[in-house]
Every structure is written in structure tokens, then in C-alpha cells.
């Protein structure tokens, strides 16, 4: 490993307004859920220390306003991201259908060096609502979409009850770390796209 190790991992959370981005971030970082979060204006981030194999990293999690009208701001915030989290609400078909837009918008604005292999993680949130009775997007459907986009890791979460939140962010951190390392390892040498893309296909084994 190079001595100049990355210690800051930048993660962007995207998804329609109200799907629970701010709540997920706060549940993960502060272990709290509040009904009183305000709609996000502009952007903000929280940081959390994470440990992998005896190494400490700072996970910097960016939360932005979800309304599409604010997307032109994205450029300033998405740059340099190591992983992008796409969130939808399992009780809203529209929020699921929009995942593709969010993914593409991110790739355009962040313009990562290797868009094919840029790590995404998808979260289907609010699984607690109504005991699951108002759910309109099935897990199967969501997983199929994730598979079609290059095996994006998928989690079903509840920011309210904390379900799966820790697990999801473990995976997010791991992917962010991998993406950072790949850059470090492959970029200075000749770029070997085939090798790096092969490595990626495994997705997240968490």
C-alpha cells in the first residue's frame, strides 16, 4: 500500500425529497431519529470515524436538498465523491423510478474518472411504515434494477427504527474505501480498465 493513505472518505446521499436522506444520516451518525428534521436547504454533511482493519477513516456524509430544482448546485458538492448512496421510499413508486435520474445526474455532475465502476449503494427506506402494508416497490423489483446497473449493493432500511442502517453504512464505507484505493493503485500506472472492472463486479459482500 502507498504510504499516502486516504483518511477522508466522501459519500453523497441522493434521492427525492422526503425519502429519508437526512433521517438516515442522523440515525447512522447520531443514533437518533426525530420527526422534526427540517427539509434540507442547500447542503450539509456529518462526519463519523470508521475503522477497517486497524485503520481509521473519516466518513464525510453529504446530504443535499432533494428537489430537482436545486440540482445545479450539485457540481459544487458532488466533486471528489468516493461513493454515492441512492435512497428511495419503498412506499413511493415515483421515488424508485427517479433513482435512475439521480444516478445519471450524479455521474454527469461529479464526472468521476471511471463512471462505469463508480460505487453506488441503493437503500429502500421506510420499510417500517404501516407494518409494510403501504409498500408499493417490492424488494425483488428493486434488486433487479440494482443488478441491471452493475450489481449495486442493496439494503432495506428504516431510519425511524434503525433497521439495517449500520449494516448499510458499513457497506457504503467499504465501497468508498475501495474506490479510493483503486484510484490510488491504478491511476498512477497505466490504466487497466478491465482489471478494475472485474474487481468491482463482486459488489459488496457485507
Amino acid at each position, binding site marked *: 500500500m502507498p504510504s499516502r493513505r486516504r483518511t477522508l472518505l466522501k459519500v453523497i446521499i441522493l434521492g427525492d425529497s422526503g425519502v429519508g436522506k437526512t433521517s438516515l444520516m442522523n440515525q447512522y451518525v447520531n443514533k437518533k431519529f426525530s*420527526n422534526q428534521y427540517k427539509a434540507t*436547504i442547500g447542503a450539509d454533511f456529518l462526519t463519523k470515524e470508521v475503522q477497517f482493519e486497524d485503520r481509521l477513516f473519516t466518513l464525510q456524509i453529504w446530504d443535499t436538498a432533494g428537489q430537482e430544482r436545486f440540482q445545479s448546485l450539485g457540481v459544487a458538492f458532488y466533486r471528489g465523491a468516493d461513493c454515492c448512496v441512492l435512497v428511495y421510499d419503498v412506499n413511493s413508486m415515483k421515488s424508485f423510478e427517479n433513482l435512475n435520474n439521480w444516478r445519471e445526474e450524479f455521474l454527469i455532475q461529479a464526472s468521476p474518472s471511471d463512471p462505469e465502476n463508480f460505487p453506488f449503494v441503493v437503500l429502500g427506506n421506510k420499510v417500517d411504515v404501516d407494518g409494510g402494508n403501504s409498500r408499493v416497490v417490492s424488494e425483488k423489483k428493486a434488486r433487479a434494477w440494482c443488478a441491471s446497473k452493475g450489481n449495486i449493493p442493496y439494503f432495506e432500511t428504516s431510519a425511524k427504527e434503525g433497521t439495517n442502517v449500520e449494516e448499510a453504512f458499513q457497506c457504503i464505507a467499504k465501497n468508498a474505501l475501495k474506490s479510493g484505493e483503486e484510484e490510488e493503485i491504478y491511476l498512477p500506472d497505466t490504466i487497466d480498465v478491465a482489471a478494475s472492472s472485474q474487481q468491482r463486479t463482486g459488489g459488496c459482500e457485507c
Partner: protein
Amino acid sequence: MNRSDSNKQSSSGEQEGAEIVYVKDNVAIHPTQYASERISGRLKLIKQGGSLLMTWIPYKGQSSSARLSEKDKSLYTIRAVPFSDVRSIRRHTPTLGWQYVIVVLSSGLAFPPLYFYNGGVREFLATIKHHAYLVRSADDANVFLVNDFQDPLQRTLSSLELPRAVSVTNTPSSAAAPSESPSSWTDGETFDRNSALAQQNARQRQKNNDPARDLSIQVLEKFSLVTRFARETTSQLFWEAQGDGFIPNDRRKHDKKTHDYPRIAESNNIQKLPEDVPVPEDPLEFDKVSLVWGKPRQPPLGIEEWSAFLDSEGRVTDSEEVRKRIFYGGVEQGLRKEVWPFLLGYHSYDSTYAEREYLVSVKKSEYETIKNQWKSISKEQAKRFTKFRERKGLIEKDVVRTDRSISFYDEDDSPNIKSLRDILLTYSFYNFDLGYCQGMSDLLSPILYVMGDESESFWCFVALMERLGPNFNRDQNGMHSQLFALSKLVELLDIPLHNYFKKNDCLNYFFCFRWVLIQFKREFEFEKTMRLWEVLWTHYKSEHLHLYVCVSILKRYRRKIIGEEMDFDTLLKFINELSGHIDLDAILRDAEALCICAGENGEACIPPGTPPSLPVDDASMYYQQDDDDVL
């Protein structure tokens, strides 16, 4: 050309051997948004010796407005500015309206936009190009750089933007001033040396007999802020302030006051710094400027005082005086319901009780009519009306997360939350092109809290959105123009801070996005927000006081920002976390001082039509291709 002008300095504009190479009539400036206050004049380019000069002289005695005296007009006169003092010219071509240019001087100051009523911008630029060094900026096709040097090293040097103590508008002779050629700016230390010198100067001057006056002038001079206007108002202000007993006459008292002033103690506290990072001095010596110019806050306007402003039929007799009073003190909570509709422009100051009562009833039924447009959409209809469902869904998600900590909104099934929803949904039908955008619920919430009544709140909100609507445009142009103006103001009022932001890629000012979008709603507690808003809405010192508020907050924390070498991320986080920790009264006082200090140069930083100014052209300002959003 300047014959009729008594100013002796102007004579150097045209001497023997001067050749007029360009003349354009009906080139105007718009000092305010009012068409009646526009000033037309003649623009000339004059070739003299080796240099090219620009003049713009307003026509005599032609103004339609009694409000603009000849003296006012002459303030704007551009007397023979040599192009060696010009850094760039920005050309604006609005889709509707006249083409205009903004001429930016090397000092960083800019003249107000020059509107070419009869066209001729292209010829103007071509003439300059013919006689002086002019190139199009690689970054922006509408920016033309003057004196941009081929040599990359020199270019870097010239972009250091060293402050120069040359007052521009009233020294036509500055062409003859000591050489300002870039080669004399030998290194980055020049600036430090300059400011050290200036400080030394300042210290010396403070020993003089007339400290306050001297201080204010010198502080201005140091940063090229002395225009004739500023000089005049400075002395005037000084005497005024002294009349208030606010400026102490003698030095000891002044020092003492400084110590008594709580915010200075506070700012010392928060600005503890590692010793090793040098922070360039604030060129304005802001604390002092604020002491000299920012007036102390007053208690809020109460019912008795307000009644005295009304005549027997309920007209506000002196609206200027009312606005001034509110600017300095705000309004008591119990009176807001009555006063806000005036500030917002829903009621006009010269309306009578009877006229207002009538308006309220007419508007009430109008509100009900618009509200019924969506109320009458049946479930079946809504099923096939995706835009409506989505818009409603978006609003419903936001109203339940708006100000829930205020008791007015804290119950889960609060009727006030429902009113928020109904008003916003009705507004999105009233202004269908703009629709609903996040942030609007923040703007509405205090209005509903104050007005109580749904229809009244709606119309007050409509009035507010007349000015702030462009903040929410799909292309975000209202936000971009405000953030751009903010960057220009910081450049004018604190160039080291500007340079710091530039160096650290922070010039987009996105870290101020939330401040500007919802007028600091998230930065202060509820009551303080209302206080700030009513002050902003007076438009008393400037329509854009909120931008000066931004500058004053940034200036207050400049030592911390620069000293801790904050990058964009850290800065954004820092700014977000200032929420709840900003001393409103102190900031308002600073903002007023900055606004006075910047004067016309400050206003010139702000493009016409920048919110909350009323839009320059109304037509289809919201309408864009309907391809985005849930709408």
C-alpha cells in the same frame, strides 16, 4: 464637454490635442429601480496623448424626476477615467431590455451599469480595442479585459489585485499619478507592507484632534472607497452621529466605549487563533467603521407611536419615516399583523382604513376562488393528474417539517399546518409556472404566525414572492445573481478575504446559499428572524441589506476563516453551524455601516433586477421548459 461643470478637476478631461473617437447619446444609468430616476447622458471615448479616456456626463436639467437633484446627478458623472485604470468591461445582453455594460476598475470598484438606449455597445468595445489593449476573457465571452498582459507572470501579478489608495471617480488626473504599472508590484509582500503602512498611518491619525472624522475618512481612503459621494456623506454622517452623542469627542472615551461594547469581547473570544497563520488585516478596520456608522438599535415600534404615524383616515403620512423607524428597531409582536402588510407591499401606505378593509374582503373571495381550483379536484381526477398529486405530496412532506418546535405548529394535527399546506398549494395554482419549491414553507411560516388569517397570509406571501420568487426559479438565476453580487461586495469591502476565497475555490459562495434563499430563516430563532425580516423589508438603506448582512457575518469571522485555513467543506460546515449563534443586533449594525461605507459602489456591485429588487422585466420570468421537477 465639462465646461459647464464647475469642478476644477474636470478640466484635464479635454485638453489640447484631445480627439473624440466615440460619442454615444442616450446612455443611461439606473440608480434605483424607478424608471423616473434614470439618468441619461452622453458617453465619450477620448484619445489624448498616448492614453484613452472615458467620460460619461449626464444631461443637464432634463430629469423627469424632482427627486434627483443636479447634485445627485453629478455624483454619477464619470470624468475622464483613463483606461489604464480599467480592469475589465462586462457586457450584458438581457433577452428583453437594453444592452448594458459594467466597467470595472483595477481597484475592484465598478461604475453603475451603463444602459445603451440607442445601441452601440459593440462599436464602443471595438473603439476601445482599437485604441487600448482589450481582449476577450477566456472564461467568459462577455467579459473584456483591459490591460491584460501577454506575459503570464505579469498577468499573475496584476491579478493580485493590490488595493490602491486612489480615488477614482474624482481624480481625473490619476493617469498622471505615480506609475501603477504591474512591474512595480514586485511581490506578494507589497500588500502586507501597504497595510502595515496604512495601519501605522491610522495610528498616527488617531492622535489627531478630530479622531472620529479622521478615522472614518481614512478608513475609506485606504480602500479606494472615497468617491465624492462618500466624502460628502462621511462628513455629514459624522456630524449627525455626533449629534446623537454616539461618537465620543475625545479619544479616551472612545477607547472606553470600545471595551464596553460586548460584541468585541465576544469576537475576541471566538477568534483565538494559532499564532503561525498570518491573517491579513481587515482593510476597513471594520470594528471601528461599525462604531462610527452603525447606529445603536432602538426598541421596537409600539402601538402608540404607530398611531401617531396615521392620519384620521388611516393613511401613513410619512412612510419614509416609518420605514426608518422600523429599520432601527423593528415592530412589536402585537403590531406586526397591522404593519407587515405595508412593509410587504400588500397594503399601500396612502390607503385609508376603509380602502384596506375593502381590499381585504375582495382579496378574501379571490383567495377562496383560487383555493377552490384545487379543492374541487376529485379523487378520480387526481388519479389522472400526476403533477397535482406530486406537487401536493411535496408540500405535505414539507409543512410537517416546518417550525414544529414553535408551539403554533407543534401539534401533529395542527390546523396551522393545514393552513400552511392550503396556502402553499393555492399559491402553486396562483403562480403555476413557479409552483412549489422547498424553502417556501420557511418563508410562509412566520407570515402565517403573524397574520393568523389564511387569506391575509396568502396575499402577504404573494407580495413577498413578487420579490423573492426568482430565488426559486428552475434555473436558479435569482440565487446566482445574489451570490455573484455578494462576491462583488466582499471584493469591494474586504479584498484579503475575497482573495482568500478565490485561492480556496470558494468564490461560488454556495456556503451562503441557505442564508440567501430563505433570508436567514434557519440562522436565527423564530422571533429574531421576524425582527430581521421586518428590517430587511423596509428597504430603507438598501433593497439588498441582506447581502450586507452576509458580508458582515463573514467579516466578523474572517480571522477564524482565514486563520484556520478553512477549505470549502470546512467553511460550509462552519457557516451551517453558526446557526443560532449570530448576534442579530450587532450584525444589523455592522451591515448598516458597511452599506453606508460601500455607498454607490456597493449598489453598483448588484446587477439590476437582483432579488429582492422587483424583476427588470416581468414577462415569462418563471416559465421555462416544463421538463423538470415533479411539476
